[in-house]
């Protein structure tokens, strides 16, 4: 038996760290070398000497934070070596460019899931099953009350929500990278044919997606002084940070909604302050997490990013899979 100290990857200062390669995964503070799973800001920090990611993640990051970061890129599946460890990126289905990261050292395989989902999403590569000995998985939605509907059903609900109130301006709040593009892609396949506007931050990401070869419906960049009549019956995509405060005063006669996995719970919907919630997520639901744990064939599983207590107990009782805890 190995002791915890000898694990190839462990938790250090609240971040995943591989001592042998002296490399950090999605670190929250500046380090020498950082592997980045995807371009969401909670997986990235400024000031690292060197970043390593997929090509798409690198481009999205530079779009978001500027060109002056040093970043090395690899294709999905392409192996590279650091201190004798073979490392490779594999699609995680979360957003464009998102990846799982595999480490192989002395015939021992480690897999960091990154943020992932199994649901179909035409704006990024489908999750790839990767076999491993050790799995470090996220578990944001690790309870069986989370069971996602097909995304086209949600898109149809959104379409109905807009068209049922033709006299209103419908503001849909969603994360500007990933969720917004996925929604645009799905909504363009529904009966809703009205105008779609998007906030600058979302508009920018749409363009990046297009540059990377993803077909995203054209939207109009929202100007602050749009005539209210023009906006009637149309859809406006905005980042959640604008839902509080004075920004909404730019609009009259609005209805608001938030697109997030948390919206499947009525109490959270009510508390969110939005009129409506659409339960759509770029993370795996309960079944998705279980499927990945099983199909990865991992003998040892760690969870992070979420409450893992119930999930761990369930895996032990039902699947005899032992879930390990990082010493932090």
């Amino acid at each position, binding site marked *: 038996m190995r002791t915890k100290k000898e694990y190839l990857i462990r938790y250090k200062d609240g971040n995943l760290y591989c001592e042998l390669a002296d490399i950090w995964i999605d670190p929250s503070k500046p380090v020498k070398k950082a592997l980045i799973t995807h371009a969401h800001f909670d997986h990235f920090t400024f000031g690292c000497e060197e970043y390593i990611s997929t090509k798409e993640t690198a481009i999205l990051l530079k779009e978001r934070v500027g060109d002056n970061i040093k970043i090395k890129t690899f294709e999905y599946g392409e192996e590279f070596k650091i201190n004798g460890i073979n490392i490779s990126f594999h699609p995680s289905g979360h957003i464009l460019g998102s990846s799982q990261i595999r480490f192989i050292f002395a015939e021992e395989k480690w897999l960091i899931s990154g943020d992932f989902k199994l649901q179909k999403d035409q704006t990024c590569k489908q999750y790839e099953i990767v076999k491993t000995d050790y799995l470090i998985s996220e578990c944001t939605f690790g309870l069986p009350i989370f069971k996602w509907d097909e995304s086209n059903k949600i898109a149809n609900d959104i379409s109905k929500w807009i068209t049922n109130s033709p006299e209103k301006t419908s503001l849909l709040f969603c994360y500007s990278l990933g969720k917004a593009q996925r929604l645009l892609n799905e909504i363009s396949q529904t009966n809703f044919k009205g105008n779609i506007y998007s906030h600058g931050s979302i508009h920018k990401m749409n363009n990046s997606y297009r540059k990377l070869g993803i077909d995203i419906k054209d939207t109009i960049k929202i100007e602050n002084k749009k005539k209210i009549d023009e906006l009637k019956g149309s859809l406006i995509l905005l980042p959640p940070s604008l839902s509080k405060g004075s920004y909404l005063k730019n609009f009259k006669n609005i209805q608001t909604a938030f697109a997030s996995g948390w919206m499947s*719970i009525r*109490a959270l919907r009510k*508390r969110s302050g939005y009129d409506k919630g659409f339960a759509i997520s770029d993370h795996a639901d309960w079944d998705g997490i279980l499927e990945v744990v099983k199909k990865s064939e991992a003998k040892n599983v760690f969870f992070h990013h979420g409450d893992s207590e*119930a999930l761990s107990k369930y895996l032990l009782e039902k699947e005899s899979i032992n879930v390990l805890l990082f010493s932090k």
Partner: protein
Amino acid sequence: MSLKKFSELFGDLDSINSTNNKIEVLKNYFLSNDPIDNSWAIYLLTGKSNKRFISGRYLKNLFSQIYEYPQWLIDTCYLKVGDSAEVISLLLKNKTNSRKKKLSNISLNELLSETIPALSKLNEEEKNLEIKNIWETLPEDNHLVFNKILTGTFRVGVSIGLITKSISKLFNIEQEIISHRLMGDFKPSIDSYEFLINKNINLQELNSKPFPFLLANTIEDKIFKNSINDFQFEWKYDGIRMQLIKRSGNVSLWTRGQELVNESFPELVEKMSHIKDDFVLDGELLVWNFKEQIAFDFSLLQKRINRKSPTRSIQIKYPIIFIAYDLLEINGRDIREIKLENRRIELEKYFSKWQIKTENNISDIFKICDLIFPKDWPDALTYKEKSRENNTEGLIIKKKTSIYSSGRKKGIWWKYKVDPMQLDAVLIYAKGGSGRRAGLYTDYSFALWKDKELIKFASAYSGLTNIEIKELDKWIRKNTIEKFGPVRSLKPEMVFEISFEKIQISKRHKSGIAVRFPRITKWRKDKKINDADSLENAYELIKKYHEKYHEK
């Protein structure tokens, strides 16, 4: 015409904020569904369906048994969701993929008059099978409403007033008439629905209509510039504001929320019907301490409000009184346009006549409000501060020349509420909330110093903003000392300003004091726990407001 349509309505009402839109959605629903389902919908929406066919616990056990789900996992989910019916409906999404379609378009009427009542005739095994069968044949977005009806927990965020308003607008019948017709034992049927929307209004219905209520505004400084003699002063009671109407021999009690509450207070209806005149009185209903001649706490009144046809012993245990403030109509003559000071003369005149001339004694259930006569504004302030002693909330100040108009009209009536009492206390326990606060730690307990020990003195759950609740929740999770079930004991570190309405000695509490309506009024991030108040400070407050406690 189905549970499906009703589930959609439930979802819509849940996600619409504007009252007008809610009314539109309700109108459309009533227009597009048949009378029998409409009558059931009204029955559900007005909260008349609180019968519990099975308990939430039973529902969770049943799910666990059928689908071999560990009970602890369901309980964990419940902590996140805060509602048994909803937890099961969410978990069912994972389980009922094979659709049999048979029930998929069941009408509300069939569900509520046949399917669900039939459950209670089955033995446990059959009942469980039948519920499983219903679960597996209902479309998944109907599960929530079904489970809620089953567990008697169906509620939706619309008031009875809004339902009656929608029906009233749709069929062009006055709202008070609809309220009157919905009162009491509304049994869903085609007949009851046809009666509800019948445009022919009978005399008794017409006679029961209340006037729009006139409401008081918060005190404004400019009032102090006026002569004290321009105003009438009354105590502000903390009861149910009500119009007591007697016309053509029939008595009706209307709350401000357009609710007819005759059935909750039959003894008042009975007594008042002996008075020979017809009248409309504006006043307050209270549970009354006849010995001390002051009101009991509102909490006692709550024991009466929701109880229809109270037994004789309940009536004795919680004796009510109606205190009239104003006379609005007398023997068919609307006197609302007469000046307040003259209406008051009429009120006093008729009250003394009724006391003498009515065969039964009415003064054990009905009186008119006493007036207060401060000699100047500082004196008024002194009266206001004294209001704690007689369990009132402060003063109501009314312009003597005002007429009785409607709504919160500016510049004629004011409320002058007593300031809350406050102590700075230390947060020591937190508990998970339920309902819309599920998943967050929102119920807090606070302590005061006694020597070097912190002694719990109050619990509160309201007063913080959503943002503060989230921030505090985070802090709580990081600073837990111990967990006992849903409760966590916390590192003493956070100080809060707790306000309350009343403080008194209590032998039942470890701290020896009890406070009423404690609430958080400020998160004192500027204070360290050593700055928090002590029990000594609390006793001083008691001394200040209840001299009599210490004389004994």
